[in-house]
């Protein structure tokens, strides 16, 4: 039997960590709202995945371009193109690109791992969106920096049973 006091401490730590992550993400969301979006509260799963990927790093905006439709008529097939401005040299390259959704039942959509051999930090795929929400792209640089861009996508017909 684990000591109940230990459990209490662990839960409190997890809670505090999640709270810190939520607070860390708020400015980016607020920015998206300023751009005319409605207030969309991210899911707990999003908060957890965001905290797991970003870790102790505070993501900064810039260098990331995300091409998503403003309105997705079919949430089952939403094309997304992500490009990160990077020399892609051994000294300075994009290590990973993560796609997160704030309102899907599974927040973590995909991660793409890159290296200097790719020469261009640009990937394209198709994703599901259950409803109108923010798509958050995190790009992990070789120096440990994390870049972020949040894009609001309005969804007409949600991705069925995502």
């Amino acid at each position, binding site marked *: 039997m684990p000591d109940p006091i230990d459990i209490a401490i662990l839960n409190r730590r997890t809670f505090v960590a999640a709270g810190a992550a939520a607070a860390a993400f708020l400015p980016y969301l607020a920015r998206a709202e300023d751009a005319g979006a409605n207030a969309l509260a991210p899911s707990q799963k999003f908060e957890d995945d965001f905290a797991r990927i970003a870790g102790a790093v505070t993501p900064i905006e810039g260098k990331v371009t995300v091409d998503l439709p403003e309105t997705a008529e079919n949430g089952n097939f939403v094309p997304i193109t992500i490009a990160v401005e990077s020399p892609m040299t051994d000294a300075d390259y994009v290590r990973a690109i993560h796609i997160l959704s704030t309102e899907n039942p*599974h927040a973590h*959509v*995909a991660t793409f791992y890159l290296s200097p051999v790719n020469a*261009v930090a*640009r*990937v394209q*795929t198709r994703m599901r969106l259950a409803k109108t929400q923010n798509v958050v792209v995190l790009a992990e640089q070789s120096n440990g920096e994390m870049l972020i861009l949040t894009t609001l996508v309005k969804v007409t017909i949600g991705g069925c*049973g995502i």
Partner: protein
Amino acid sequence: MTANPRIKLPDAAKAGEVIEIKTLITHVMETGNRHDKNGKPIPRDIINSFVVKFEGQQVFRATFGPGISANPYVAFHMRVPGPGVFEFAWTDDHGVTTVATALLKVA
């Protein structure tokens, strides 16, 4: 069922050129959140990993969640050192890997 992998490479590239590689595979990408008409949950069945090698060296890797659309499509770039063989491997939740190869010709 994983089926029909499709790879698109340029017909011919120059050594040192950056090319775009487009990939598509037929797969239902069942999320695990849906129910059949009797209300029974449909188990999750997705491709969760995609790995690309060129001449045996890994050049690209991706992990997918249920948020990737059915028939996963991925495009990425690479600087090609010369002619060679690409190997693409998609692995599903059952641990089954589907492999496709493509030959890059260099002019």
